[in-house]
């Protein structure tokens, strides 16, 4: 499974949960840790091929062959080390997709400058949640349930394959109701790589390789993602 391998730096506060979540979803995760204790913990938790090394050494980083992984995730507990690591990885492997998390607003900027492809800012997300809770408590609680919980209602993205019956249709034409799911938005490859919400009011033409995001009960989402691979709609 070449497309699903992740190189995860850090098995501390965040790394541990991320690694376990990814493994559950069928990703192959290789853990790299500089802290002896965390490294041992990773091994105990079943990440047998975890590596214990000094992440500040370029040679050691090169030896890991990061270019073979789809994504490099930097979630070291020490934020200074995290920024340094992001910078090293970016300078050594310019093409790689680097995802880092930031524990403070100053770090976010530094991580971006260091070349992280995507930075997730812990405080930004949380502070926004407070605003959301104050403004729309019910919607926030529900939305969080959609994102956090593994069962019940959730979001799912699906890629439209070449043979799908959806190819050639417009978003307004498709009746999603029989499937029990709702279309939230899509990435229209024709219009660049930006995500467009369905509520933007533009009628999109669905093509092969477009990605759609739907919301619905998990089982219905699964069924729907299987359904759209077919040439003819069954319902």
């Amino acid at each position, binding site marked *: 499974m070449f497309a699903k391998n992740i190189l995860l730096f850090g098995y501390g506060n965040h790394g541990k949960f991320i690694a376990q979540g990814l493994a559950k979803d069928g990703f192959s995760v290789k853990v790299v840790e500089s802290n002896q204790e965390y490294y041992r913990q990773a091994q105990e938790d079943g990440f047998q091929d975890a590596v214990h090394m000094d992440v500040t050494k370029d040679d050691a980083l090169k030896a890991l062959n990061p270019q073979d992984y789809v994504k490099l995730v930097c979630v070291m507990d020490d934020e200074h080390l995290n920024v340094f690591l992001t910078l090293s990885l970016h300078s050594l492997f310019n093409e790689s997709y680097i995802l880092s998390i930031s524990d403070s607003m100053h770090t976010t900027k530094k991580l971006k400058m260091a070349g992280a492809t995507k930075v997730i800012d812990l405080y930004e997300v949380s502070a926004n949640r407070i605003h959301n809770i104050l403004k729309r408590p019910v919607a926030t609680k529900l939305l969080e349930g959609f994102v956090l919980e593994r069962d019940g209602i959730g979001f799912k993205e699906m890629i439209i394959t070449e043979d799908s019956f959806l190819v050639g249709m417009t978003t307004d034409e498709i009746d999603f*109701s029989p499937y029990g799911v709702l279309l939230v938005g899509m990435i229209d490859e024709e219009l660049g790589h930006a995500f467009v919400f369905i509520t933007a009011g533009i009628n999109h033409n669905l093509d092969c390789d477009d990605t759609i995001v739907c919301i619905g009960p998990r089982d219905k989402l699964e069924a729907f993602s299987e359904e759209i691979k077919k040439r003819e709609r069954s319902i």
Partner: protein
Amino acid sequence: MNQLLLSLALYLRTSKRYKKSKNFVSDLLNNSSNPYKKYVDITIIFLIVTSVFILIYEVKHPVPEWVDNYDIYFVSFVFSIEYILRLWVYNDLSEFVTEEYHESQFLQRKFEPWSVLKIGLVEKLKYMVTPAAIIDLLAIFPAYRPLRVLRIFVLFRVLKLLRYTKSINQFVEVISNKRFELLTLLFLLFFIVMTAGIAIYVLEERLNPNIEDLFDAVYWALITISTVGYGDISPVTPEGRTISMLIIVSGIAMISFATSVIVSAFSERLIELKENRIVEQVNKSRSFLIVCGYGQMTKMFFRQKKDALHNYIILDKSLERVETARKDGYDAIHEDASRFETLNKFNVEHAKITILCLTASDVENIYITLNAKSISRKIKVIARVNDISIISKFEYAGADHLLMPNRVVNTMVHTAITQPTMYKAVHAILTGKSLAHIDEVHIHEFHSLVGKSIKEIDFKGSKLLFIGIQREGKFMFNPSTSEHIKSYDILLVMGRHISINYFNTLYAGDI
């Protein structure tokens, strides 16, 4: 007679209306967080100001009779009502009588209400001799006015203002904290003035035509020691002049001493006074936020505010962080939110309070949550949870919303890897950076949507995506189009701000 008194007391004790009205009046007069108190205050202040204005105007101009009547009868009437009400709510006589009755029943002794009634009346009398009550009483009497000298008693009405101006109260409070120093100084002043007065009287009474008696001598001493020196009386002998020099020097020393005592008293209390002012200010609003802890999360929260926050206050245990918050331009006070007294200072009764527990420590956050909920269940608490394993404890403590930064971030990282497109959508919604929002439409009892079925509502026309209904705590995802909307439903919709606003203006409003 005893029986009559008892039945009256029992009737008053059990009457809910009596109790309610007494509590209402007491709250209105004494509780500064009562929203209506400010109207009472403004009325009284208006009466005082007009009354004093009339007094001044009258000196040179004749006033119409109705103005005089207003001043003498109306103002005095209002003030006497106020005086009586204050006396009434000061304590409860019926409580004394009924308690005595229950005790006598229990101990099987003779019921004697008069002795306890006396205690109650003595308490009321004690209230009557407090400076505030005396001023209130003197401010009532208009009878003084025909006598010109006694007209100055109207100025008691000015003194009445003391009750309504917080800053003077604080000034008095600060001064009374330095009672000991100031009393020592006063005693010293008295001693020097008397000594110098007697000395000048003895030395110059016969030689100085301006000094006729001891009162003149003491008056001269006080005018000299205060360095005012009118010059109407001045010493004529070398001995007298020597005494003048001595008391002038001691006067300068005393004035500087008094000034320094007062200044130091203020600088000691300055921060506290400032903080009290902030608390009072925020207590005036009907709904406000109490933010506990000024760390990264709080900073980010304030930085992100889209529309300026007005009604908030930051509490932090660390003086250093409070200083930082003040430097950043926020209203912060140095208080421990986990203490009962701290949260109890706020207008829990009349305002809608939301507490944000954003300190970095879970223990602290739980404690604050419990503290807030123990004061009033009405207080809404949004708490930050760092350790995911103790979520249940926060739920037991009664937190209304939980913030789990670590869990949210972990999920986001996970989603960013597994479903990058969905991540974009969710991240955009969560951080509010996109055009699309998920919002809620509250259906009140008289909302025009009540009773309508979903297919009758044109979500698509307003460019909204209808996601579901939250009804009685349960969420119905994408319900069938024949489902009818009920009162108190919350509709979950997704769309742009303008779409949501448009939808609200289109459908909101009464049937």
